[in-house]
């Protein structure tokens, strides 16, 4: 692929494109991990948020509020510089980036899913209880199938946020598209000036994000869920 790009675009441009595209895979991996991890933790937080126990509910609300209010940049600085210095131990940028993006994603996803679950009328819960079903049985058989419809579009929409968020991980030394691109923009090579490299990077990010945005919009129309959840993750 490297040779092909060099053949098509010439020396500096082809090499740069190849490096940018191969760095993009780390952006994708990090996004996928953050989405999966965030989904897992976010799911647990959602469960705690709607559970019958007051303390669990309080804790979940606190968690969501806290990590929605903390800037992602600060999470990255804290996990990439703060905690390692405090413990006196080096931490791999992968771990730090994964940890901060996972926490970030979990708070937003939990908020989206809480909104979706609470948008289901409480009569559905009561009906389940009247039938003698338990909490998890009601959740699995009655609530989740309905809430899924509402939650799907904003969840897909939030993945765009995660991809855009990974662009900040270069600050703690993570080697992704942003990091490589910035290095090319700073390199004194003709044909890789900032006004060429940065639009190219923007195009690559756009190519990753735009289909997801469109898909989220399509789901909204298809499932008829426009404006049903609070726009926690519309940004």
């Amino acid at each position: 692929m490297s040779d092909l790009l060099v053949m098509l675009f010439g020396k500096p441009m082809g090499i740069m494109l190849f490096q940018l595209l191969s760095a993009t895979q780390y952006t994708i991996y990090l996004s996928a991990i953050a989405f999966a991890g965030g989904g897992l933790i976010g799911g647990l937080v959602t469960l705690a948020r709607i559970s019958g126990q007051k303390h669990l509910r309080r804790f979940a609300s606190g968690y969501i509020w806290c990590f929605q209010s903390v800037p992602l940049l600060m999470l990255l600085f804290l996990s990439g510089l703060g905690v390692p210095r405090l413990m006196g131990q080096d931490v791999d940028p992968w771990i730090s980036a994964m940890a901060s993006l996972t926490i970030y994603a979990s708070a937003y996803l939990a908020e989206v899913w809480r909104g979706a679950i609470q948008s289901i009328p409480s009569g559905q819960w009561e009906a389940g209880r009247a039938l003698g079903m338990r909490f998890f049985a009601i959740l699995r058989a009655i609530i989740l199938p309905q809430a899924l419809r509402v939650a799907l579009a904003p969840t897909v929409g939030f993945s765009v946020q995660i991809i855009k968020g990974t662009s900040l991980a270069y600050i703690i030394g993570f080697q992704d598209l942003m990091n490589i691109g910035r290095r090319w923009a700073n390199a004194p090579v003709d044909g890789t000036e900032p006004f060429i490299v940065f639009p190219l990077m923007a195009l690559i990010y756009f190519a990753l994000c735009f289909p997801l945005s469109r898909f989220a919009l399509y789901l909204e129309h298809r499932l008829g869920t426009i404006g049903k959840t609070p726009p926690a993750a519309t940004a």
Partner: protein
Amino acid sequence: MLELRFFEIYRDADFMWRLAEGVWLSVSLTVTAAVAGFLVAMGLAVVRNARVPVLALLSTCYVEFIRNTPLIVQLFFVAFGLPLLLGYSWPFWGHALLGLALNFSAYFAEILRSGLMAIPKGQIEAAEALGLRRHVRFIKIVAPQVIASVYPSLTSQFIFLFLTTGVISEIGVEDLTHAGVFIDSRTFRSFEVFITLTLLYVAIALTFKACLLAMDRYFFAWKVRQ
């Protein structure tokens, strides 16, 4: 090893001064960019809603492009790409202001557009029936209702965007994050420094929220609320 030494930050007058200046610059740049962005967003939303032939398409492309690329790439392009391309040189904060305003405008435009689409047709028809001219109709009837109805969304979007503005430190603006990175480089107390920064960001966000809520009550007192 595991000890917190916050006093290393607050006993130093220079550090405190830098933090204060950082807060000021972060807040003023964000607010200015938001106001400018809002005005641009109004234009974008109106053009798109009225289906002006070429402009509507351009505005859609612009909004989608900004919303689907990271702020940091946009800022780098505005700060390092554009000046080289067009041969101008601005102070750092000028680049940050332009970059943030462009970014904010796209997000606000999307919200305003949904507000414009949701306005009841009867309102416009009533205004037409009263013989109001087009611009009067927009300024007196349409705009106030649209802004009032999307105000909560605009508020939360603004807070969300404010929390992302720390990246302007990466293009050399001495904002709050920049002050934090500076203090970190002098003291090596990274954890304490960034905890302090986080608290400051949260405090500013809460202040913004309170102010915007008060403005909502004041300017849109006529709005029907649930």
